[in-house]
């Protein structure tokens, strides 16, 4: 039976068998390669982020699509979605957080080991969204520091992937001393952590 729409008619040439991360700047000679430790660690970290999804509502459904085969977040080194905060690097808060849920989000954040990053996915997690009401937390940045906000209600999987790429960018460029600095400590103290 003839199908109304034919798929995959155009053969796409395979560009490379394995996609490799870009090499950092450095000096290279025969048998050695010299670069700064910052860059090597940044490179390793950014391409092996373990996300911890904290999905509470409809944005979570979009996240499931993002993890699925079609959008495939695994391409960015985030194959392994961990459900233990002890093992994960990236807390993805996906969906509405009620005020009663606020302490739970904070608890999960505190259980994560440094270095840790936070992504607020969707309008509700970023700002309370349409739920401008007495029972909903008006953005998770009231309880924990946030690195990347993904707008949308709900955001499409492409937007979530864009957020992950921005997180990767932050992770790759982060100085190794940042988490020991006064500025970072001051940030955590402003949230009453430590």
């Amino acid at each position, binding site marked *: 039976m003839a199908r109304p729409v034919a798929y995959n008619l155009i053969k796409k040439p395979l560009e490379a068998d394995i996609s490799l991360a870009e090499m950092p700047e450095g000096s290279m000679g025969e048998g050695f390669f010299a670069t700064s430790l910052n860059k090597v660690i940044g490179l390793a970290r950014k391409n092996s982020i373990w996300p911890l999804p904290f999905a509470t509502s409809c944005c979570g459904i979009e996240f499931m699509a993002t993890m699925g085969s079609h959008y495939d977040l695994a391409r960015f080194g985030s194959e392994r979605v961990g459900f233990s905060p002890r093992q994960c690097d990236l807390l993805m808060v996906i969906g509405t957080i009620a*005020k*009663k849920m*606020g302490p739970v989000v904070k608890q999960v954040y505190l259980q994560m080991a440094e270095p840790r990053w936070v992504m607020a996915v969707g309008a509700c997690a970023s700002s*309370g969204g349409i739920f*401008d*009401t*007495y*029972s*909903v937390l*008006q953005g998770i940045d009231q309880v924990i520091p946030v690195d990347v906000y993904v707008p949308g209600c709900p955001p499409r999987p492409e937007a979530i992937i864009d957020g992950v790429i921005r997180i990767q960018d932050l992770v790759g460029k982060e100085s190794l001393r940042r988490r020991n600095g006064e500025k970072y400590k001051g940030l955590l103290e402003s949230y009453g952590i430590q």
Partner: protein
Amino acid sequence: MTNERIKQRLQEKFTDQLTGFDEPFGMLTFEASKELNLKVLNFLYDDEELKFRFLTDLCAVHYPDNAGKELAVVYHLHNLEDNVRIRFKVFTGIEQPDVYTASGLFSAANWMERETYDFYGVNFIGHPKLKRILNVDEMDYFPMRKEFPLEDQSRVDKDDEMFGR
């Protein structure tokens, strides 16, 4: 069992203490003074003919313009044998919103009264554990009362003109 029969049976027992008989959408509704609420509920439960032994819902309504009777506590009762439902209201002032608890008669009233307290501040006398059930414990007001705006007042980033507050 008809609404007329229920009304007649109630009036035989309580004479003129029950007021405001009405039948919105065919559901018998009446009021009593708040001191009488347990007597009426007990009568409806125990009476061999009425047998309203299932508490479907318990909630409150705030009428800010109804001076001296600002809060209404509404009981929805169900006779499971004859499949008849009635609605029973008591009114209380907002200054001292004390109403006797129905949790001794209906176990279902326990959490519903906590919820009513949580949102409207109705003080159910004799309730075993009257504390907030749905909202955060730190909340220091009763959010469903009309004097409190729906929006979160802690927000500073929303321009009232743009967001139509």
